[in-house]
């Protein structure tokens, strides 16, 4: 009955109702659409990072420091670290070089990189296998190539394993092909296009002791951050440098955390914008409810004369505010989801090849919270005022 009357009142003045809720529609619409976009951006970044192995981290000398050379990690440090720092399963150099790669008459310039087992990227394998421990132990001349390299070098398709490709005069036997990653403009390929065992790489390409960076895998993933610190400390000892020489580490978990931090910051900004629009829209709702109560003073007097209690008048106007703000908020939500979904399917999918599903539950929760907040804060006063009207005065009102 209260709801029925509220609907009737709102429909009685459709233009006024619409103008009142338009602020809510815009506010909630903006918040929800940005929420959707943030959600799918974060989703696509973590999807991209998903190709990185969880149990590994990379240490490299911090850039932007005085004596960069002094900080350089040595190839010879790796065994020492592996033998002295607990929880380290493997320590391998991270390095790579641009090479002209040839198969038959097909040529392409690709990034040839050192890889280990488990591999740098856990991208699925389309043909053959990954680099094995045996390949590494014996520094065998084998390679796993990316889908991109495969397409260039083997345009005819088919299983290329067993074929030989050449980097200059070095010959490598293709033992595996990594599967095609999702298609997107921002797609990042981890691990290089032509991966060879790091031992092979060191033998063929590393001259001198200095390496770009080192990659470590751990046995126990739960203590990975502590292991990172221990490794950095060990490197400082080995290099005989103080804490002023900085090293940076990179692992999937902390990188993901960093990304999530950025999105939390965006979320806070959006929440602030939402709060302001909520305030403005809420004042609009309150204003129109006060106008409506003034217009219906005589009606309220009549209701009271025929026996409506204060609480019943209060409930009627409170529910009217609730309907008004709920309608506004849920239209806003629908529009927000619509805009978010559209931008997702038109732009974000092109950037990253991936979009997260629309966060319906989250959107519903945000919208319901908005509606409840606006009603509670801006609907209560008008309803109280209506309930407190003196029936005699109200009946006399023209």
């Amino acid at each position, binding site marked *: *009955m209260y709801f029925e*009357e509220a609907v*009737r009142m709102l429909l*009685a003045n459709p233009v006024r109702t619409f103008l009142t809720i338009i602020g809510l529609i815009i506010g909630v619409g903006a918040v929800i659409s940005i929420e959707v976009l943030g959600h799918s951006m974060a989703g696509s970044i973590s999807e991209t990072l998903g190709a990185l192995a969880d149990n590994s981290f990379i240490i490299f000398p911090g850039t932007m420091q005085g004596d960069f050379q002094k900080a350089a990690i040595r190839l010879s440090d790796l065994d020492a670290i592996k033998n002295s720092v607990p929880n380290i399963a493997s320590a391998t150099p991270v390095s790579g070089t641009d090479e002209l790669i040839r198969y038959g008459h097909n040529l392409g310039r690709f990034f040839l990189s050192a890889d280990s087992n488990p591999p740098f990227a856990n991208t699925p394998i389309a043909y053959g296998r990954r680099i094995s421990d045996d390949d590494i132990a014996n520094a065998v001349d084998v390679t796993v190539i990316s889908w991109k390299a495969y397409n260039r070098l083997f345009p005819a398709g088919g299983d290329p394993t067993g074929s030989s490709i050449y980097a200059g005069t070095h010959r490598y036997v293709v033992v595996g092909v990594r599967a095609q990653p999702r298609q997107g403009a921002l797609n990042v390929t981890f691990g290089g296009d032509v991966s060879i065992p790091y031992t092979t790489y060191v033998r063929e390409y590393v001259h001198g002791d200095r390496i770009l960076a080192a990659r470590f895998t751990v046995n126990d993933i739960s203590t990975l951050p502590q292991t990172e610190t221990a490794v950095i400390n060990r490197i400082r000892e080995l290099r005989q440098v103080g804490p002023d020489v900085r090293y940076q580490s990179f692992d999937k978990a902390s990188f993901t955390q960093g990304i999530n931090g950025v999105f939390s910051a965006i979320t806070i900004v959006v929440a602030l914008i939402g709060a302001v629009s909520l305030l403005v829209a809420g004042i609009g709702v309150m204003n129109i409810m006060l106008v409506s109560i003034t217009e219906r003073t*005589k*009606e309220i*007097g*009549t*209701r*009271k*004369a*025929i*026996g*409506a*209690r*204060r*609480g*019943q008048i209060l409930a009627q106007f409170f529910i009217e505010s609730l309907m008004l703000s709920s309608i506004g908020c849920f239209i806003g939500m629908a529009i927000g989801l619509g805009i978010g979904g559209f931008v997702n399917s038109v732009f974000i999918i092109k950037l990253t090849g991936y979009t997260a599903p629309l966060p319906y539950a989250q959107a519903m929760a945000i919208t319901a919270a908005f509606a409840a907040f606006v009603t509670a804060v801006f609907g209560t006063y008008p309803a109280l005022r209506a309930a407190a009207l003196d*029936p*005699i005065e109200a*009946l006399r009102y023209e």
Partner: protein
Amino acid sequence: MNNGNPHPAIVLRAITKTYKTGALEVPVLHGIDCNVARGEYVAIMGPSGSGKSTLMNIIGCLDRPTSGTYVLDGEDVSNLNDNALAEIRLKKLGFVFQGFNLLARTDAQKNVALPLFYAGINGRERQRRAMAVLDEVGLRDRAHHKPNELSGGQQQRVAIARALINDPAVLLADEPTGNLDTKTSADIMALFDKLHDGGRTILMVTHDEAIARRARRIIRLLDGLIVADEPSSLTVP
């Protein structure tokens, strides 16, 4: 219609009402004593400022007397709080206003059923009882018309039906024909006669001598006092 209930419908004893506007005290009623028996049909008359609206508000439980005792249908209602007064209006009183005061955009049946909603009665029962009272006022076939689709007389009938739906101890009518033409007024007065014949207690405020004479008893107020209380000289055949 409360037959078998031994109490008079209305007992007023030494009712006074004084309005306070800042430091200024405006006495309006100076001591009203009056009984209205069950089934009586009474008109209250008096010029502007005589206090008849104030008296009507007190009898209608919209206002409390400054002093004195008001017993409605056996219950002392002189000093009840707002919600208790609302409850009394809901259960024991029916209001008919000069301007009908129907909810716009709401059909006759729902208008009539409104008091039952406030009494917490379910929708089906509300509908059934609203149809029964609309039948009583001869508007069964207009149940689903909205006020703007009804004539003034029909609207006032709907308002009367709304006043009757809770089976009130007293039906209060404030200038019920004030907004109606002569012929329609006659129709409404005929309906009041019929309700009186059916045993309803009716209290009506009016300026119109001819309308007042339709009642069986006329109370005349002047400057906050009852100056005359006599049977109506004109009896309707």
